[in-house]
């Protein structure tokens, strides 16, 4: 149980904010991952939907019903259940894109730093250019191109999710690559690496076994904060109508649909998914902030 | 001749004898509260610096030399704090002064220079600007007069063509030149004590000698006391009148430079002197002191040096020795053979 002796755990125990954030984040992740069992309804089972129940307000208001705790939307779907299922998709895209971006970014960073030369220059040039464009724009662009190329009209949710994961990760790999490259350059010149090369240890082994462990700290911080931005990016793309389709909505799609009912007074269709989104992102951001301060050698 | 000669110094508070020390540090104790308990970085440090005297403070990295300097000038970084003891400047206490009063003393009465001249100078402002701001903070001069004085200061520290250089940026100076600028900045308001923390460590050997010579000359000309912190015994031998040897946050030995170097009393000082290679000797191996200075969280009871001491006895492990007189020096050891 060495982890519990470490400085990291110690720092965690003294940071009530981080603890609270971790609790919230974990709670939401579990609730949405287990949505089929936790949610009171399955909002995608058309058979259970009753249009008479449509647009019911939250339970504590007049005309609200206990069974639909947070109200229903225009098709009679329970908002709470839809939020749980929607969070699932948001989290799927969020974590999926971060994992992909990490693999891509770390891989390219290692390669670039270790091999050096023209490959390094090329990769860094691409990274620099890409960095001067905001991630959302790149994600939007890749998404748009993918739509046109794959010729899906945005109604196929599986394809939409895959495209989203791909485009968001392609938009975000750069920070990983640069950090890893920096660390790789530092490690490359250290004596133990040179010794390993002299012995004849193959390059890949050196990179994976020696350089990688030294890099996990900063990468973890970037990844955590990236989860929040990825979730927001997905929500934004869905809100704009180029993300997950309304048939299996993510939180962003829900807000998009709910936006249409803002003026007619059915505020719960926007507020609750919005609150869920904000809660999720804030808790992940707080965790990321704490992690970054805790792992920062300068503040030890 | 120059603006310098028209500056009147505030007279010493108590018009006592000339030999009353300028700086007195008594029983200084500096602590660092941490998650895992309190670390004692300076433990009962006591010494004096006379007027116009140069005191060298020597010791390994981590012995507490810089912390002592920082405490004197009031720039101890939190969470470090002075837990007990007194610092007296011209007979008046410094350690408990409110921030604003301490600020007025800094630069005007006590100045400090640090190790790395490159990072000590603000890269975005001209040398002249930094000089003028310092001068105008402490002295009642207008911009034109301040600029004139700045040029004089640069000339005084050996920078050629000072009337041009005053408008240059720090990166336009070489390493040795920068340290001269740093010294000029420290002397801008004619302080009476300079705390010099490793002023030559970051410089080339050839330039070190020049900077040391410069410091010596300026200190002599302005009757400035200097607390010269360094780990280089050679610099001390060259420059200081007296020297204090620090170990693990305490003073091991203190005395006139000649005495401490040629007749060291404390076993640690003896080890230090013995390990300095000399051109005149014929040795097979370099002598060294076994072991290493203890970390702050693992300081031995009794004498801090006892695990490494060749003459250690039971008493050393139980009772911490105080500074006692041995001839012209003082040493913190129970068993000095006179």
């Amino acid at each position, binding site marked *: 149980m060495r982890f519990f002796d470490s400085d990291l755990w110690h720092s965690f125990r003294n940071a009530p904010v981080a603890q609270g954030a971790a609790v919230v984040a974990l709670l939401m992740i579990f609730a949405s991952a287990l949505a089929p069992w936790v949610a009171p309804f399955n909002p995608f089972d058309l058979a259970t939907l009753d249009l008479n129940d449509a647009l019911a307000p939250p339970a504590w208001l007049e005309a609200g019903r206990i069974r639909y705790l947070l109200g229903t939307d225009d098709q009679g779907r329970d908002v709470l259940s839809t939020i749980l299922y929607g969070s699932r998709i948001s989290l799927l895209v969020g974590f999926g894109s971060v994992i992909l971006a990490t693999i891509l970014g770390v891989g390219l960073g290692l390669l670039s730093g270790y091999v050096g030369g023209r490959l390094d220059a090329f990769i860094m040039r691409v990274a620099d250019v890409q960095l*001067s464009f905001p991630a959302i724009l790149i994600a939007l662009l890749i998404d748009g191109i993918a739509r046109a190329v794959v010729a899906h009209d945005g109604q196929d949710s599986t394809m939409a999710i895959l495209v989203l994961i791909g485009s968001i990760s392609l938009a975000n790999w750069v920070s990983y690559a640069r950090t890893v490259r920096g660390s790789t350059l530092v490690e490359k010149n250290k004596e133990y690496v040179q010794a390993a090369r002299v012995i004849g240890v193959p390059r890949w082994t050196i990179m994976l076994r020696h350089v990688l462990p030294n890099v996990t700290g900063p990468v973890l911080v970037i990844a955590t904060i990236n989860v929040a931005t990825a979730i927001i990016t997905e929500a*934004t793309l869905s809100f704009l109508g180029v993300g997950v389709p309304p048939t299996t909505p993510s939180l962003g799609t829900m807000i998009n649909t709910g936006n249409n009912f803002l003026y007619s007074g059915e505020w719960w269709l926007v507020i609750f998914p919005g609150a869920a989104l904000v809660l999720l992102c804030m808790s992940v951001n707080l965790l990321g902030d704490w992690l970054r301060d805790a792992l920062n050698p300068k503040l030890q | 001749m120059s603006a310098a000669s028209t500056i009147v110094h505030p007279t010493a508070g108590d018009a006592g004898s000339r030999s009353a020390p300028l700086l007195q540090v008594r029983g200084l104790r500096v602590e660092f509260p941490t998650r895992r308990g309190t670390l004692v970085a300076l433990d009962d440090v006591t010494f004096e610096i006379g007027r116009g005297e140069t005191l060298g403070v020597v010791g390994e990295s981590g012995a507490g030399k810089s912390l002592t300097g920082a405490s004197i000038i009031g720039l101890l970084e939190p969470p470090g704090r002075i837990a007990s003891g007194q610092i007296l400047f011209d007979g008046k206490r410094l350690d408990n002064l409110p921030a604003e009063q301490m600020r007025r003393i800094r630069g005007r009465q006590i100045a400090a220079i*640090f190790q790395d001249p490159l990072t000590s100078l603000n890269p975005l402002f001209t040398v002249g600007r930094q000089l003028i701001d310092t001068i105008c903070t402490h002295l009642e001069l207008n911009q034109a007069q301040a600029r004139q004085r700045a040029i004089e200061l640069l000339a005084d520290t050996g920078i050629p063509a000072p009337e041009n250089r005053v408008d240059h*940026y720090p990166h336009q100076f070489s390493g040795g030149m920068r340290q001269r600028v740093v010294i000029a900045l420290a002397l801008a308001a004619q302080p009476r004590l300079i705390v010099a923390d490793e002023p030559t460590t970051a410089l080339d050997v050839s330039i070190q000698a020049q900077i040391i010579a410069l410091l010596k000359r300026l200190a002599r000309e302005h009757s400035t006391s200097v607390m010269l912190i360094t780990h280089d015994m050679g610099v001390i031998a060259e420059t200081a009148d007296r020297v204090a040897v620090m170990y693990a946050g305490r003073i091991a030995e203190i005395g006139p430079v000649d005495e401490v170097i040629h007749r060291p009393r404390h076993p640690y000082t003896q080890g230090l002197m013995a390990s300095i290679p000399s051109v005149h000797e014929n040795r097979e191996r370099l002598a060294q002191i076994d072991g290493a200075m203890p970390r702050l969280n693992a300081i031995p009871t009794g004498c801090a040096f006892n695990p490494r001491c060749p003459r250690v006895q039971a008493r050393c492990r139980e009772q911490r020795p105080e500074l006692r007189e041995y001839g012209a020096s003082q040493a913190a050891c129970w068993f000095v053979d006179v």
Partner: protein
Amino acid sequence: MLAFILRRLLQAAMVMLVVAFIAFALFQFVGDPALAMLGQDATPEQHQQLRRDLGLDQPFPVQFAHFVANAAQGEFGISYRQGRNVSELLIERFPATLELAICAAVLALAIGIPVGVYTALRRRGLLTQFFMAMSLLGVSLPVFLVGILLILIFAVALGWLPSYGRGEVVQIGRVGLGLLTADGARHLILPSITLALFQLALVMRMVRAEMLEVQRTDYIKFARARGLSDRLINFRYALKNTLVPVITIVGLQMGSLIAFAIVTETVFQWPGMGLLFIQSVQGADIPIMAAYLMLISLVFVVINLTVDLLYFAVDPRLRVERPGSSGH
């Protein structure tokens, strides 16, 4: 210095070429350029004729050269959906986006920098903690949600401010400015705040972090050791040291303002380029997408270049002079 500018210009040209290539590829593989020029109602014969005229049967590099030549003159063909000339559409919508972006930028800087400095100087105050909490909210709230919330509170619930559109616009030549009329200004308020919020929070946190770093430097320590006043140290020295690196990042952030304008314009139905772009992505209107891409890249490249030049002007270390060699 001249060499530096030339090099950056060359880089900029390269980037534009690459972007042009992507835009061109969009046309080639996804859309039909002949269709773009003629619109959807052309006959097959006209189509074929135009293909020959346009040289679409010519080798790839030649076509690319034509594309670039056209693009340089602002000729991108005709929108698939709207049937109008793409460049005209863009020019029509550009001022609206620019107005929004500039207002948001001013807001973000005018509030973000002072607040950032304040929170760095008063590290543990109550107000500081409040600002830090707000900034956390600012970076955690997605732009569209902020917009919706603002609409909900100020337009729907309170009815103080309008919730969509641009309001009255004063025409100066071809450019319409809403800021000059009271109605237009009212319409600007909510969208500007929405767009500015994320930037504001970011600027604030960055200024704070940088200032805290600067306060730990040796030169500030030395300044303290010289007894300089807090005011002098913080507001003349530390502030300048803080703002110099912040400038670059802020400049680059201006670019993302234009990108996020897309979202803000969607929420508020603001008739700018962003809204146009989104509609074109939804409808696979390739000519607009390609043109927007090139225009945005141009804007970014110009911004980057400007920021580089600014940095050059502000940081003396980057100028040509070498360390003085006049002895030691």
